[in-house]
């Protein structure tokens, strides 16, 4: 049974480089498994999805990028704020020509640069449009939409379009659009997942991010602990190894038993490596406790050798399913 049965829009954030794009893509595959249709979106003009799925750069158009286990399809869309605005002007105001002219003049770029809140509402507005489509004719219908979102440092601001736009547009359609986006983002149809690794700064950002989301009335979803490594040292020796008082005689005996030349230098070097490792394991343990205290569901993904390939994405998707995220 899925931990997020009501959720239609999955937002994936996290500190830079922790695996947001990888996890977002895998989550889309997991959600599509068994015959469903899922849209994977990105908003930072980096073509991260195309790179990951090894396809040509995505245009502003929904393209199929993968087939999920047991049928089901993942479509992808790279949302461009200028094109989203043009689409919006055309659809609601029949202002296609005016829009094209403004674009040529650099006016749209200007407006979205000087007021990033405006850009964000265009981006989230398009995501909302895809997530709330109802009948055919208005485009492909999706069972779920996944957003590969900006990093944690900017996520609350990015999603809090209402506040960001409120001061700029006190009325009018953009304001209205911001209100609708906000209503969707605050509803139980949206979950905001955070990806992290077990290091000080990403964990700190996760903790700060959860607090910020909560205080903005947004719902943090799962915490995905990515790139986990199994501790290699047996539990009973961990404390000694970390303290640098590993039983050297035991290691020496073992080396001899294995027929490895056990010079004092080799034994000392191996013990030093064990100490580094054990200290790292202990730090990671602390970070795990910090994350557990958030009381959000936690999903664990190991460090994989093929995370940037389709096989790795399917592997992560399966793990998310097995752990009940999907």
């Amino acid at each position: 049974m899925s931990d997020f049965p009501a959720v239609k829009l999955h937002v994936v954030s996290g500190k830079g480089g922790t695996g947001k794009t990888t996890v977002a893509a895998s989550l889309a595959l997991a959600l599509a498994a068994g015959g469903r249709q899922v849209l994977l979106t990105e908003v930072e003009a980096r073509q991260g999805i195309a790179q990951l799925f090894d396809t040509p750069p995505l245009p502003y158009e929904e393209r199929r990028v993968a087939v999920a286990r047991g049928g089901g399809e993942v479509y992808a869309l790279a949302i461009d704020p200028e094109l989203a605005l043009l689409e919006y002007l055309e659809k609601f105001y029949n202002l296609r020509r005016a829009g094209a002219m403004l674009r040529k003049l650099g006016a749209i770029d200007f407006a979205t640069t000087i007021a990033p809140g405006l850009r964000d509402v265009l981006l989230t507005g398009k995501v909302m449009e895809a997530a709330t489509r109802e009948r055919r004719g208005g485009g492909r219908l999706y069972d779920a939409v996944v957003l590969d979102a900006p990093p944690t440092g900017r996520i609350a601001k990015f999603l809090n379009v209402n506040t960001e736009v409120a001061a700029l547009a006190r009325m009018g359609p953009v304001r209205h659009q911001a209100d609708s986006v906000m209503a969707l983002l605050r509803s139980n149809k949206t979950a905001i997942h955070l990806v992290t690794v077990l290091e000080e700064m990403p964990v700190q950002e996760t903790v700060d991010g959860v607090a910020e989301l909560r205080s903005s009335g947004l719902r943090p979803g799962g915490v995905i602990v990515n790139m986990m490594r199994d501790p290699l040292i047996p539990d009973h020796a961990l404390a000694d190894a970390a303290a640098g008082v590993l039983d050297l005689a035991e290691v020496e005996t073992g080396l001899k038993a294995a027929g490895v030349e056990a010079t004092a230098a080799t034994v000392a070097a191996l013990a030093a490596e064990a100490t580094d490792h054990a200290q790292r394991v202990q730090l990671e343990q602390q970070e795990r406790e910090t994350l557990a205290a958030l009381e959000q569901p936690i999903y664990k993904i190991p460090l994989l050798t093929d995370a940037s390939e389709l096989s790795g994405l399917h592997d992560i998707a399966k793990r998310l399913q097995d752990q009940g995220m999907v």
Partner: protein
Amino acid sequence: MSDVLPLDVDGLLSTAEIIVCCGAGGVGKTTTAAALAVRAAEQGRTVCVLTIDPARRLAQSMGLTELDNTPRAVDGIDETAGGRLDAMMLDMKRTFDDIVLQHADEARARQIFANPFYLSLSSSFAGTQEYMAMEKLGQLKTAGTWDLIVVDTPPSRSALDFLDAPQRLGRFLDGRMIRILTAPARAGGRAYLKVFTIGVKVFTDVLNRILGAQALKDLSLFIASFETMFGGFRERADQTYKLLKEPGTSFLVVAVPERDALREAAYFVERLEADQMPLAGMVLNRVHASGAPSLSVERSLAAAESLDEAGGEELTAAVLRLHAERLASATRDARRAEQFHSAHPKVRMVQVAAQAGDVHDLDGLRAIGGELAGGLAASAPAAAAG
């Protein structure tokens, strides 16, 4: 890597006036900047370190508990050599506000501060942080209080942003749209400018319709009250950029031995060369090394397996597997360092080992400083890799 040119960090610390630490996101720019600053201060120089978004515990260890945008003395520095260390965290909004205050009288400044477009621009424009970091560096340099200023750069995906973003902001504020919006009247008469006037009309119409009349009013007010300052932004950016080319300035590019970070470092190195900016060298951070390079990966794994089969030597088997993993990382790191070196043979390099824990106190910074100054020879991991 035997022919790699070593980077003489202590030499640099004793002569440089400005050291700028650049590199891709998360590679250790802030840590390196802080470690260099501590070392230089303890060697007798009067140092200021400008940090940007440091990790919380590192900030606390340097007494940076509030963001007040001015350097404060760091406690716990050994001042016996006659040096000292001041540290600060950049507050970009406040730095922006200060620029406004310098150029506008109080009433006008207050008007600007309250404008939603200013708020938006000063707190979230993509290049504001870089621009304000440069601006602050210029101010610190002008103050003349310090022999050495060590500058950290904002967390950004690309190291080049630090060089490019300030001018981007300058260009934007000095750009075509702003000029069009500030001077529709002046445009009258000339045919090619008429297009702009029509454009402005469409722009304002659309803005009116979708954002409401108030937004347009705010934007016009913002642009009007900012008008006298716009050109100035570009000029300031150009000036600080020049400061970066002066003889007392040195760049250090920080990287970790991973593909993306090294690619960023390579872009950066090439860019500095093209712009004739002084690169002191590269800090290759978080490098893995092994103290037992002669015990190979294959041998270790085979030995671990034979112990597993025989049973009873669980700890040694674990230690052997660990060693295999560590040596494999060291070999991979050394190969990547070597690749970078052969593509950029003239770039001086120093390596800093991956520490077991995070670096978050003065002692940790001293240890990094020691490695930077040559604790770990540049060729060690290569030797380690056998």
